[in-house]
């Protein structure tokens, strides 16, 4: 009844549709992490973390950057997602403090298991980082889709760190930039998904309603109900 979707075919078509705006060039994670740490430290009013230590923040920032990479367009790093998560952990997501504090060493441990010469996640190579997170992503892409509200309803308590950090990263990337959550800085997340920054619009809204002539009764409205 319901066609199965060929993901690879779909992806290739999607990527083709994006065309020239797409670039596979990865910002080297090491450089980005260093840049970020430098910027935070050099800022005239350095942003203080409310929950994370500087070291934890660096690791978390590197993980968020794998979840939503800065691959030619802004990613989690530019959106300041680590600051969003830090704020989240002392506000709406304080239940997850333990998950981060106890989970981060686990990620470090996994890195060492897979790559004995690696030092920290934030200093690992992009391939190493990818391999570590793939090994932690138990659900993979096999989990069935859920209505967006149902996702929220499920909550994020008692989930492994990877799931929590994934949810936090997405939320921190796409939160209303005018909110006080410290995420989606400069509205970069919305710009990536082509959501205009405004909070009011006039029709026509898009391609399909541009030349709509207005509603008219069907010339042959059916008599009685369709069965």
């Amino acid at each position, binding site marked *: 009844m319901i066609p199965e979707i060929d993901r690879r075919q779909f*992806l290739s078509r*999607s990527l083709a549709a994006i065309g020239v705006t797409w670039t596979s060039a990865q910002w080297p994670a090491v450089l980005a992490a260093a840049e970020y740490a430098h910027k935070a430290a050099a800022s005239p009013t350095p942003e203080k973390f409310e929950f994370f230590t500087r070291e934890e923040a660096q690791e978390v920032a590197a993980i968020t950057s794998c979840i939503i990479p800065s691959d030619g367009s802004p990613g989690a790093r530019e959106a300041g997602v680590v600051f969003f998560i830090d704020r989240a952990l002392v506000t709406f997501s304080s239940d997850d403090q333990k998950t981060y504090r106890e989970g981060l060493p686990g990620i470090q441990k996994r890195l060492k298991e897979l790559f004995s010469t690696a030092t920290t996640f934030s200093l690992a190579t992009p391939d190493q980082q990818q391999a570590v997170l793939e090994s932690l992503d138990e659900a993979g892409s096999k989990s069935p*889709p859920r209505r967006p509200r149902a*996702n929220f309803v499920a909550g994020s308590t008692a989930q492994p760190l990877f799931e929590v950090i994934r949810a936090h990263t997405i939320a921190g990337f796409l*939160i209303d930039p005018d909110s006080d959550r410290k995420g989606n800085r400069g509205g970069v997340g919305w710009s990536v*998904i082509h959501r205009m920054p405004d909070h*009011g619009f006039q029709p026509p809204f*898009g*391609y*399909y309603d541009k030349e709509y002539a207005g509603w008219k009764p069907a010339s042959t409205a059916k008599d009685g109900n369709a069965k």
Partner: protein
Amino acid sequence: MSKAVRKVMSTDRPKYKTSEVVDFVIVGSGAAGGVLAKELSTNGFSVVVLEQGPYLHESDFSHDEIKILYEDFLTNHPKLQPNTFRKTPQEKAKPQRALVYGRAVGGTSNHFTANFWRFHEIDFIERSKTGAIPGTTFSDWPITYGELEPYYAKVEWEVGVSGLAGASPFDPPRSKPYPMPPLPVKGSGVIFERAARKLGWNPFPAPMAILSQPRAGRSACVNCGFCLGFGCEVKAKSSSLVSMIPIAEKSGKCEIRPNSYVHKIELDERGRATGAIYFDQEKNIHLQKAKVVILSANGAETPRLLFLSSSSKFPNGLANSSGYVGKNLMFNTAAVSVAVMDEPLNDYKGFAVSRVLHDFYELDANKVGFYGGGGMDARYDMTPIGFAFGGLPPNSPRWGKDYKALLAHNFTRTFEIFGHGTSLPVMDNGFDIDPDVKDAWGLPALRLTYKDHPDDIKFAHWLADRSHELLDASGAKEKWTYPIGEQQFGVHLLGTCRMGSDPTTSVINADHQTHDVKNLFVCDGSSLVTSGRGQPTMTIMALAFRAADRIRTLAKRGDLNV
């Protein structure tokens, strides 16, 4: 009353003492409670509305998805108010969030989708037409569409509904046109309309409780894109909060008392209600005395309150001599299909729904093989974070560059076909109180028992098949349906204190008066006998307008001592 006096009173909002015996105490300020408060107070009765949630205004609303969807800013809170769930009465229920409802002045009408179809004639007499359905308590209503019609018109004109009369060939008769033209069409609506017409179906502009034109000091919709789930900052969404409650307060006879969590209806030795006992914000307990008590606390909290008000006289729950309190819960069947188009619709702009069709409102059970009927709409009701969690096709990547690319491509190109319709009333399905789990006030938590009637599941699949036909005709390249399975969670909370003429198979009569307690009334989603076709709030509001008229008639006759 002279104009001058009225003016003074309008600024002098009453604060009734709890010891003062007011005419009416209404529990809940949502779709039904707000209408009742307005109707009764403007007719000169003294009214206290006890609302468990806070009193918020448009300046308190925001587009912060965390606040709305994680922090339950407008809705019941799962930590303070845990629920439990089980499939059958034989099982022990497990802690699990079972429902969402509005918990603020205005109730669920603050954040609803605002789809405002009327029920049709068939909804009230379907049992007679269809015959009995095994495993159900399927029944006719004690009132007809004709009796409710004037009140549907009142909702459209007084609360504010945009739409186009006569646009659907299946619409029931109406006494008046809509007060405002439909909202603008969205890309999803255009695609839906063109595809449906190819199939010979009859799409029409969605009737929506959102203003398309400024009205009564409220703005027309500005198409902000944060609608379902969110409160409206410009008062365009026709909630009780902006349409009814200000009029009630201006009457000088109505006090809205927020942060007042009612947990017991007080009775005298004759078994008549004398008021409502509630916790204030500091958890101090009060009794608001009243001559008449009206419960409009929603289809879950109303039965819970009746169970919490058990006594030696009513050992199985107040007003529950029938055993029907909390039973026959209906959620409305739904099937949601999603499509991705080649070009951007930008359907994130605006309200959710602009086109609907009712071609399947009445299906012939002999032909389709199950009982059911419903409507379909074209919509986009996702906000950015919600979309990123649940709006991508099955088996999509969940993180990394491919995930990001998919978000970037699909967010503006996606829309949904929402099929919604009947649920059958099953006696074992419902809300009662959990024997073990307590809420933050130490009161027994809501327990949901629910297992879909097999016809509802068949109907959901049938709706999904029609959605796919429509999407095939639309030229959508990608399409899928969210998994259809047994429901364990609801937002439409219907039928749990049903209306009826027979006191052994219903909780309230056609006047919304409980069969067991003369001065106790129930009016909310729990009053519904059948589920309608998926959009209950319009009918809940129409019932509330009618209930207010009936209550006034009883009061005039001297039945209520007010």
